[in-house]
């Protein structure tokens, strides 16, 4: 055998200069392309410059510090019209993020429930779920947003005729239950106590949803700390329970224990601090409800429509994800003695997830992007507040549209990055 030592490939040798050399050819093509790009960008820039200076429009981002002057109907952070456009931008962005985040959560819930329902043995449930999926997926999202807003929410009664909801039915039921078993006398003190709680405190009208609002007074921090402590404790508990199960094989109801902690600790802290949290119940005063937490109908319509629309797509994704796990997998799990619950949790779902995650990601992205349709019903999201009102008041179209697009792009890229990372984790290892 000839003696050939392992060695690396040689450096590229010098080549003869020829037009049919692919390397040279590709560099020429790329240089030409680059020149065209540069020319395009330059001509865009030059045209924009010329057009703007002809019109005398200001440019730059100085406007962000100017007084906005307009009001916004939903603000997650303090805002009023004397604050700046920059602040208004943040308010809009937060509104977008809020509706996108809640939409994603809700759509995922709906999607998983409907996806599983479509696989149900029960034909009625299956048919209903199929109808849901087909109808929601085949109607434009904007149509659905306007439907919820114009056709449903706007037909609700006005504030004075609001539908009120309280704990009345619950206490009423307890009361009648007690009298039914002959303990009616007990009912009296209970009803007295309940009367306060039972008055309607949640209202629904065409101005939206009005909820009781917790007011945090002095000492509320204690409760927050207690809550944090409870969260940490439940995590520790969960880990401990897992360790214990691995060590001894004995299960521990970590979920219920954690839940108990999450409720009990803050309650205890609240007592100890002298009940610093009071509930502000909304009251009808003048035109509208005063106090309480208001959820505007624009938000509700947008959220509902987005969640329901996207939920239909997610349902299909979930369904095909589950179907993609072969029957052999559940048979194998069953033959090992695993019951349906653990089979689903330990075998089917982890495998379905890897089929589900990539298309799920694009649905999340679509939902986020579709949240910009809120502008059609007056929801003050980023697009409406910034690319709408602000653009109108300042006229700086280029800066504003560019920033708006950049924000959506960033959200998209971040979401894909996170989901991509997750997807890598669940991806199968193959030979």
């Amino acid at each position, binding site marked *: 055998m000839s003696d050939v030592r392992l060695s690396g490939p040689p450096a590229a040798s010098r080549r003869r200069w020829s037009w049919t050399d692919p390397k040279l050819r590709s560099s020429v093509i*790329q240089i030409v392309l680059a020149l065209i790009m540069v020319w395009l960008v330059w001509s865009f820039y030059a045209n924009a410059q010329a*057009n703007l200076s002809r019109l005398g429009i200001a440019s730059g981002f100085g406007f962000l510090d100017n007084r906005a002057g307009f009001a916004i109907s939903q603000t997650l952070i303090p805002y009023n019209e004397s604050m700046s456009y920059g602040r208004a931008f943040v308010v809009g962005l937060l509104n977008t993020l809020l509706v996108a985040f809640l939409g994603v959560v809700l759509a995922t819930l709906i999607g998983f429930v409907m996806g599983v329902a479509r696989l149900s043995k029960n034909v009625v449930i299956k048919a209903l779920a199929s109808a849901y999926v087909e109808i929601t997926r*085949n109607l*434009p999202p904007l149509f659905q947003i306007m439907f919820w807003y114009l056709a449903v929410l706007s037909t609700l009664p006005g504030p004075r005729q609001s539908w009120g909801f309280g704990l009345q039915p619950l206490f009423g039921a307890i009361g009648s239950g007690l009298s039914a078993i002959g303990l009616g006398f007990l009912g009296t003190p209970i009803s007295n106590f309940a009367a306060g709680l039972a008055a309607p405190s949640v209202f629904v009208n065409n101005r939206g949803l009005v909820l009781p609002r917790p007011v945090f007074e002095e000492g509320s921090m204690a409760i927050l700390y207690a809550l944090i402590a409870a969260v940490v404790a439940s995590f520790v508990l969960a880990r401990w329970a897992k360790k214990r199960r691995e060590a001894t094989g004995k299960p521990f109801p970590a979920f219920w224990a954690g839940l108990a902690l999450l409720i009990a600790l803050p309650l205890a802290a609240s007592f100890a601090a002298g009940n610093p949290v009071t509930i502000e119940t909304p009251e009808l005063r003048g035109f509208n409800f005063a106090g309480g937490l208001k959820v505007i109908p624009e938000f509700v319509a947008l959220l509902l429509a987005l969640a329901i629309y996207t939920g239909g797509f997610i349902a299909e994704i979930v369904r095909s994800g589950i179907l993609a796990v072969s029957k052999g997998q559940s048979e194998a799990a069953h033959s090992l003695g695993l019951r349906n619950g653990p089979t689903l949790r330990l075998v089917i779902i982890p495998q379905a997830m890897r089929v589900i995650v990539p298309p799920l990601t694009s649905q999340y992205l679509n939902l986020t992007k579709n949240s910009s349709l809120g*502008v059609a019903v007056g929801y003050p999201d980023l697009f409406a507040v910034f690319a709408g009102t602000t653009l109108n008041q300042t006229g700086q179209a280029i800066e504003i549209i560019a920033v708006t697009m950049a924000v959506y792009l960033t959200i998209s890229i971040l979401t894909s990055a996170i989901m991509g990372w997750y997807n890598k984790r669940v991806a199968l290892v193959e030979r």
Partner: protein
Amino acid sequence: MSDTTVPLSAPRVSPAQAYVSTTLREQEPAPVATRGPVLWVRKHLVGSVPQVLLTLFGIWLVYVTVPPMIKFFLIDAVWTGANREACLPEKVGRAVGACWPFVWAKLDQLIYGFYPASERWRVNVVYALGVILLLPLLIQKLPGKRLNAILFFGIYPVVAFVLLTGGNLEMQRFLIGYFGPTDLFAGAGIVQGMRISFWIDFLLSTAIVTGIAYLVSRIVAGPEAAPGAAKTTLSVFVLLGLVIFAMDIDVGLPQVETRLWGGLLVTLVIAVTGITVSLPFGILLALGRRSKLPLVKALSIIFIEFWRGVPLITVLFFATYMLPLFLPGRLTIDGLLRALVGVALFASAYMAEVVRGGLQAIPKGQYEGAMAVGLPSSLMLRLVVLPQALKLVIPGIVNNFIGLFKDTTLVLIVSIFDLLGSMRAAFTDPNWASPTTLFTGFGFAGIIYFVFCFGMSRYSMALEKRLDRAQRH
């Protein structure tokens, strides 16, 4: 290891256990139901307690949704009337469901927008031609797909354009006029309805671009490639010239401006244009994304990911309000056209991803096979790769089309009134304000959208099944 057998315990079959069946048993009917309606009901409706509860819940859901809908849209509905009075419960004296006369009254507006009534036959002709050309294209069994496709994708758009707008583009300048130093030929007049300035400009532009193509390809690809490149460029221009010429002749139809268009017309125009324009661009982008040239690849990726990462309405906003700022002052573009540009850019990015999926599904062996018989890479793409890839992604393209069809509604945010926009405009008519107008309108528009989208999705599913089968044989 164990093939050097450790003797196993001796066979324990006593002769008595040895067994030979003497009778062959016939197929017997099952003692309990293993099929039929009873088992079906047990299995699918009342198998267990949770099953029963689910069934009851489902039936309850159906009960609270379906009968009221039927009652609303059919039984209690009002079918005729001249204005809102017909649909007011006070006036009618009974519970009133859907207010159909509202839809009848607005139907023209929903289908044609403000297209002048005397010219609506033109829209009808376009609709009819579209159906006549499209149906045979969708039915796989019918022959003549090639001619059919040329008619539908090549001739039909031009005819539709002339019919809908009235032709007579009155183009004044071409490339040189817009991008050149000055508007050289502005002075030239009109001969027989044709603008001399435009055609001089066109001929000159053609000559210049063809010359450049010849030179560049001569430098880049060598002398024998140059005539081919020049010929291709020239034929593209000739084709373009023919199309413009066809659109430019004054056929005597009155002009109808696009801002008068509306309703279903706009919905269809945007969706169909979007899909036909996005297909070639999508293919180019997809090829670009797979290119070995880093710059081409990077630009394609940036382009695709950019448009996919932003909401369509920002794209429409961009096209409607910002594009004019970026173009030379002389260039003004029609409002609908601007929206179309936005939609086409957006759809191209999505189309590119669909096509890329098809390209990825082509096995490496096909490329090698093509190379081994000596096909250069351009021919390999055209003759071997693309035909296979595109066939694979037809269902994806149809799905894209459904998405696009739904997305057309967004143009109402840039003040173009498609079907949904026209419907919303109709809602504001005080003549028809009644408690059920909104539900009726949404019901009607919903049915139209649903029929289109659902129909297409079924078509794409059927197609997918057939392609699956074809792939396997």
